[in-house]
């Protein structure tokens, strides 16, 4: 039997700024975001992005945290002892062994989003692996209102992974492919992953092509998020963080339904939480030194 291709599997990667010298830095701070599906570590040197890693979360949160930070530090010569302050965030935030403090991903995404998209951001939608958070923040990235839907995996990255696998479409290509439909199909009636999957199977049997099924699912996901956003009063500017921000099929439909365009960033949307954690770590280290 040949190996089954894992269509849901997205690329794990790391990056560091080779031009930067961290050895004379005043404050080295890190944020580690242990999500339900993916984990990120971000290292800031005096408030500037120095390195990050992005990988899947394993079954063991402390181990995932160690792996994430070690991968981010790879080939940099940096060790855990060089880091002044670490913040853990995400689902597994209390399980980050080297963290000085755990902060919720809500606060971290607001802070990270503010850094990534600039101070004009007022509404941040974090579309994660197993939950979805809507956050309104001020020009400093302080949270003004938030709403989280963590009851089920409907309308989240994990649901999209299931669909990629069902239709044998690599996860990175789902968005573009779903946009190639000539006419928007009716959204699937449920975003519950289990129900939507059986509905999609029925549609395939009826002869629907893959891109049409994906369009119906992306549209259903976008619609569910819009109804969630109603509660927190979406204000401009609007930005999306998390893995689903990379899925143009959901983003475009969301923008259309909201009548708002999401800001673009040169940063990876998945690191927002860890980046916010690292920014808090820097602020907390500064506070600690003063006291």
């Amino acid at each position: 039997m040949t190996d089954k291709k894992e269509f849901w599997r997205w690329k794990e990667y790391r990056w560091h700024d080779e031009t930067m010298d961290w050895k004379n830095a005043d404050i080295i701070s890190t944020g580690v975001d242990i999500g339900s599906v993916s984990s990120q570590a971000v290292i800031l040197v005096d408030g500037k992005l120095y390195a990050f890693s992005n990988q899947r979360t394993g079954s063991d949160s402390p181990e995932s945290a160690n792996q994430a930070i070690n991968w981010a530090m790879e080939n940099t010569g940096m060790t855990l002892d060089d880091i002044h302050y670490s913040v853990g965030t995400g689902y597994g935030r209390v399980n980050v062994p080297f963290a000085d403090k755990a902060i919720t991903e809500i606060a971290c995404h607001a802070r990270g989003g503010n850094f990534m998209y600039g101070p004009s951001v007022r509404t941040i939608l974090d579309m994660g692996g197993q939950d979805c958070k809507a956050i309104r923040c001020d020009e400093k990235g302080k949270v003004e209102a938030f709403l989280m839907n963590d009851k089920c995996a409907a309308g989240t990255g994990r649901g999209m992974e299931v669909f990629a696998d069902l239709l044998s479409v690599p996860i990175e290509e789902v968005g573009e492919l779903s946009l190639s439909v000539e006419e928007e199909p009716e959204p699937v009636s449920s975003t519950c992953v289990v129900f939507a999957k059986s509905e999609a199977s029925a549609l395939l049997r009826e002869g629907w092509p893959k891109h049409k099924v994906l369009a119906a699912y992306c549209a259903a996901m976008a619609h569910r998020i819009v109804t969630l956003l109603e509660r927190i009063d979406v204000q401009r500017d609007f930005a999306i963080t998390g893995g689903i921000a990379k899925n143009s099929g959901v983003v475009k439909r969301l923008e259309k339904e909201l009548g708002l365009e999401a800001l673009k960033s040169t940063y990876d949307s998945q690191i927002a939480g860890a980046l916010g954690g690292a920014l808090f770590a820097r602020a907390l280290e500064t506070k600690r030194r003063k006291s």
Partner: protein
Amino acid sequence: MIANYGYKNGSGDFFIAIDTDKCDGCGDCVSACPNNVFVVGEDPNDPLRDEPVAMVGEEHRKKLKYTCAPCKPDRDRSALACVAACKPLAISHSW
């Protein structure tokens, strides 16, 4: 900050909203709630805030519809204990 705890599902919106700018962390809601929904502690969503704040306990966030049901009979409903106990008027329910 308006902290919305709870969820939305097929049967409706079930959120308890706490205005953390109004909340002074007094803890009156903690003792008023018959089902121990509230806890007071360090604000996990605002790490730079020094004052304690009320929030909905982690274990109740996914089942508020059921946890709060005893206080929400179909008829002859009196004021919700948590809402009535909160002097700064920081608590509201979405349903």
